[in-house]
């Protein structure tokens, strides 16, 4: 954290009452009084060039009366993140919103409000985001209990040795996953009809240049819609066919990942991370393993590092194949490109299946290594894939990028300027296609990426076509890394220490992140020295990338919105968690 102290060292001299180091053992970063947070953020941004607010989250320290807001700032030129915290009281949890300094905080602050109940004053649109309006309580607070609540932490006592099987429904008075506030009368309930949502959308009065007075209409796309890549909903206000304003509505796949994660053991979360971004389970595993390893202060053996990189890069290829395929689907090249990409994906999935036992839900990484070694057979399988892929990439390129339809529909559409991308905390291909060469593998290297020779891909137009091409470039770079990794892979063990099912993790906090295929995937963990995390937060790249969606869509035709969304490449398991 040398970077941090250098920066704030000077600040503490100038403003001694602004930044005080967080000196609790296992913790790092600085504590800022909550009423100063907005100014401090502005100062960091304007004077110290921390121009990206990568993550906004919070942690509940019940039974103490304290909620901590945790902010991670980054420089778009690289380096470690700077962690800033604010302490709030649980009763009057309120803090100034950072949206006007960092627009990228918008969705994240809504999430904190929804799940933790922290009010952000000055937030332009503070509504529930993952649950729905009218939902009772703020689920991530430690004293909030769900209907099927059984115990604070796993393992539950009722499973062994007297583990009589009983369905959770049978213990619930309503026989279902339901629980209502006392005295609730279902008949007098008026459900939310999305009126606030519709009202919150800008309504641009028609200039009336053609002398005609026309009204705007609201169109809902999704959640059951083929173009939304899952259960995602967009509400668009249209003037004719042009989008005047657009709001993403999510939460249709909110599966309480974080709440369940705080109950699980550290190891038990590993298979759950598979289900975040279910196309790239390996990189989810990777980021989570890195975060826990930071807490445990262990490092995997050499061979395991190589295997990890191999798996992560294969995952990137899989993801980009799928993303590009479905983007073509949205452009109207109905299914043929997807089928070609999925064909190549199957070979990689076969490899994953042979290594980990499952095609998609790999659960392959362990703290301090990986679960099992790759044998000779698998290595030759990998080599064969690496031999086939470049050939097929050429074919795909020939098939698609020359096509006039693709170019007309994607060039110059959905432009995201580099300034807007940075301000909106975009990461991953979305950021790099906008001309910001920011890749965590280079900007803040982790694992053994500093040993490989590869280029950070970057494109400069920030339109759909560039995002598409950038993914193809990245596939080629990944193949390059893979070839080096296969060449240099040493032999040896793949796990440090003994396999343990209940790891006791020293108290403290850690933020582990990787450059996932979709952007910076981070896990913020707080441990209180027990076997399960006290706070488990996922910094989901696609969730935050969606902040840019509205800006990119305004002024475009409604048919283009679909492709713009496709070019962001979202996965709902991660957006909604």
């Amino acid at each position, binding site marked *: 954290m040398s970077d941090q102290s250098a920066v704030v060292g000077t600040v503490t001299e100038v403003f001694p009452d602004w930044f005080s180091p967080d000196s609790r053992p296992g913790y790092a970063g600085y504590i800022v009084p909550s009423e100063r947070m907005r100014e401090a953020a502005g100062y960091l941004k304007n004077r110290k060039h921390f121009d990206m607010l990568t993550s906004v989250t919070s942690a509940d320290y019940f039974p103490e009366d304290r909620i901590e807001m945790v902010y991670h700032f980054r420089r778009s030129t690289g380096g470690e993140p700077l962690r800033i915290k604010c302490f709030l009281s649980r009763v009057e949890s309120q803090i100034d919103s950072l949206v006007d300094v960092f627009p990228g905080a918008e969705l994240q602050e809504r999430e904190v409000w929804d799940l933790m109940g922290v009010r952000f004053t000055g937030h332009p649109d503070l509504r529930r985001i993952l649950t729905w309006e009218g939902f009772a309580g703020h689920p991530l607070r430690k004293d909030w209990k769900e209907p099927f609540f059984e115990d604070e932490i796993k*393992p539950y006592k009722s499973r062994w040795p007297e583990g009589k099987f009983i369905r959770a429904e049978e213990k619930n008075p309503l026989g279902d996953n339901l629980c209502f506030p006392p005295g609730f009368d279902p008949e007098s309930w008026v459900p939310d009809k999305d009126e606030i949502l519709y009202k919150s959308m800008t309504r641009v009065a028609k200039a009336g240049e053609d002398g005609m007075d026309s009204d705007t209409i609201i169109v809902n796309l999704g959640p059951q819609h083929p173009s939304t890549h899952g259960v995602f909903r967009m509400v668009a206000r249209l003037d004719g066919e042009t989008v005047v304003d657009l709001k993403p509505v999510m939460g249709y796949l909110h599966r309480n990942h974080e709440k369940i994660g705080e109950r699980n053991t550290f190891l038990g979360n*590993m*298979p759950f991370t598979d289900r975040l971004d279910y196309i790239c389970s390996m990189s989810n595993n990777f980021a989570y393993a890195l975060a826990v390893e930071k807490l445990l202060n262990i490092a995997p053996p050499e061979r395991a590092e190589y295997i990890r990189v191999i798996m992560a890069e294969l995952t990137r290829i899989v993801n980009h194949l799928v993303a590009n395929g479905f983007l073509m689907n949205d452009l109207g090249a109905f299914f043929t490109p997807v089928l070609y990409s999925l064909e190549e994906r199957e070979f990689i999935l*076969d490899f994953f299946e042979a290594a*980990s036992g499952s095609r998609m839900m790999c*659960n392959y990484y362990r703290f301090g290594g990986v679960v099992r070694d790759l044998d000779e057979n698998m290595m030759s399988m990998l080599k064969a894939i690496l031999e086939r892929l470049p050939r097929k990439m050429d074919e795909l390129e020939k098939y698609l990028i020359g096509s006039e339809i*693709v170019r007309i529909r994607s060039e110059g559409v959905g432009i995201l300027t580099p300034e807007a991308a940075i301000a909106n905390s975009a990461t991953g291909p979305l950021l790099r296609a906008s001309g910001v060469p920011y890749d965590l593998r280079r900007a803040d290297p982790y694992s053994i990426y500093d040993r490989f020779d590869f280029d950070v891909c970057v494109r400069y137009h920030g339109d759909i076509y560039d995002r598409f091409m950038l993914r193809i470039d990245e596939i080629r770079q990944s193949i390059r890394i893979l070839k080096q990794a296969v060449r240099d892979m040493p032999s040896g063990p793949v796990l440090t220490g003994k396999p343990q*099912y209940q790891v006791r993790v020293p108290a403290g906090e850690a933020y582990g992140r990787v450059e996932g295929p979709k952007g910076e995937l981070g896990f913020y963990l707080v441990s209180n020295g027990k076997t399960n995390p006290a706070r488990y937060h996922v910094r989901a790249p696609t969730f935050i990338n969606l902040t840019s969606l509205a800006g990119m869509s305004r002024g475009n035709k409604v048919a283009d919105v679909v492709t713009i969304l496709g070019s962001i490449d979202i996965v709902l398991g991660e957006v909604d968690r």
Partner: protein
Amino acid sequence: MYGLGILKGLSVTLKHFILTFVDDAKRGKGRYRSPQGIAYKQSTELSGLFTVEYPEEKLPVPEEFRYIPFLVYEEEDGEKKLRCTSCGICSKVCPPQCIYIVRTVDPETGKPVPTPAEFCIDVDICMNCGLCAEYCPFDAIKMDHDYEIASFDRMKHHVFDISRLAKPVSYYASIRPKNYKTEEDARAAKAAAKQGTASA
């Protein structure tokens, strides 16, 4: 010329289309519904038709493949003896907590007996993660390869009890030959070491 790009692209599809017939002609009958045909379809040399015609053709699953867990039992003179000692580790490690074990208690002494009285897995919760099999110290629970278990009624069929979970060692050895061999070797080595220390 406008449209040239599209034509170029379409030539790729055409190539795929023609290759199907070329490949069929080249490989003859053995390409479909034969073991070597399936092996070919999984190899990266594949060109032409990609489809595996389930149920006539089935892709073999790799050894590590995991679906629902099962319990291994040994057959000793016609009696089925579960390897499980009901130590409870699998139920503790299971992330969604879907393993339910009732330990057998000796009715006379009241002491626990190392075998489960009941062992249930709710397959509607199980996430096929394989952690139970990974951490069982007695190699008693393993991940099955049988995926053809769709049913019409989940209330009746989706809570697997011992009778449904128990499968013989021979079955385990057949689906996971390599794992089985390493485990047996380790066990034999351990036994030999024990003998060695005992005699010394």
